[in-house]
């Protein structure tokens, strides 16, 4: 039963107040995109065993989506940040690199 801090209202809440939303930072492909790009967008998932960037909605709270960097093995949470961005904040990346030296990056 994990806990996350909603970056939009600053409160630390438990999983039952949240709704999970899968991998973060997917780039949408629409009409005109190749079959391969569209398939990648829709289905190909990194699903890492380790540091993962994911979407959560503070469903029983402010209703906002936000993003989290979390380890899928230990559940350690490196940070959360608002959803209005196409890549993780640089400080967060730096923090993860420091904690997980061998980490291959978020892409």
């Amino acid at each position: 039963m994990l806990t996350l801090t909603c970056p939009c209202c600053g409160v630390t809440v438990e999983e039952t107040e949240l709704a999970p939303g899968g991998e973060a930072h997917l780039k949408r492909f629409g009409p005109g995109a190749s079959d391969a790009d569209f398939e990648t967008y829709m289905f190909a998932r990194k699903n890492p065993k380790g540091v993962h960037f994911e979407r959560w909605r503070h469903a029983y709270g402010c209703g906002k989506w936000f993003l989290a960097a979390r380890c899928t093995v230990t559940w350690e949470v490196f940070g959360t940040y608002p959803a209005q961005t196409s890549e993780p904040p640089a400080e967060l990346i730096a923090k993860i690199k420091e904690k997980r030296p061998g980490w291959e990056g978020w892409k």
Partner: protein
Amino acid sequence: MSEAVSALKGESHAGFATVTEAGLSGMVTLRADLSATATRIALAGQGLKLPGPREIVAGEKGRFTAWMSPDELLVICSYDEAPAVAAGIAHSLHTEHVLVTNVSDARARFTIAGAKADQVLMKLCPVDFAALKPGEMRRTRAAQVAAAIWRSGPEELSLVCFRSVAAYVMGLLEVSARPGGELS
């Protein structure tokens, strides 16, 4: 407007705390840029203050403003005033990108009163009540439905939920407040 009735018509149960459906209350949702001066002015026009994150602040005439999310406020007033309050805010902000809407009928409000009022909600909400300060509104879950709670008096908590689940929430509160279920 005499025909309006609240979801549970003021139903009340006395257990180790008293749980009561608080009857009709006026509520207005405002979605707007909360940092804009225009927003502050529009609120002030209705005797309302701008709350900080997760705050609920009293304004004039027994009105309150509660912070719901970074771009949403909830105004609480009397049921009959709500249309006018909504219209007033909307009017004041008519040149801005905002959404103002009366939601008085979409909600039910409860009070939980008594020295052990906290214990009723400790059974239902994943919230650390020892850390819930007066003036703070916590949006959370009451068992299986969304709820917003705050301290509305020295020994009283208020809870707002959706109207359709009012009977469910009353069931939760009544069961949780049953004598013999005190937590300390």
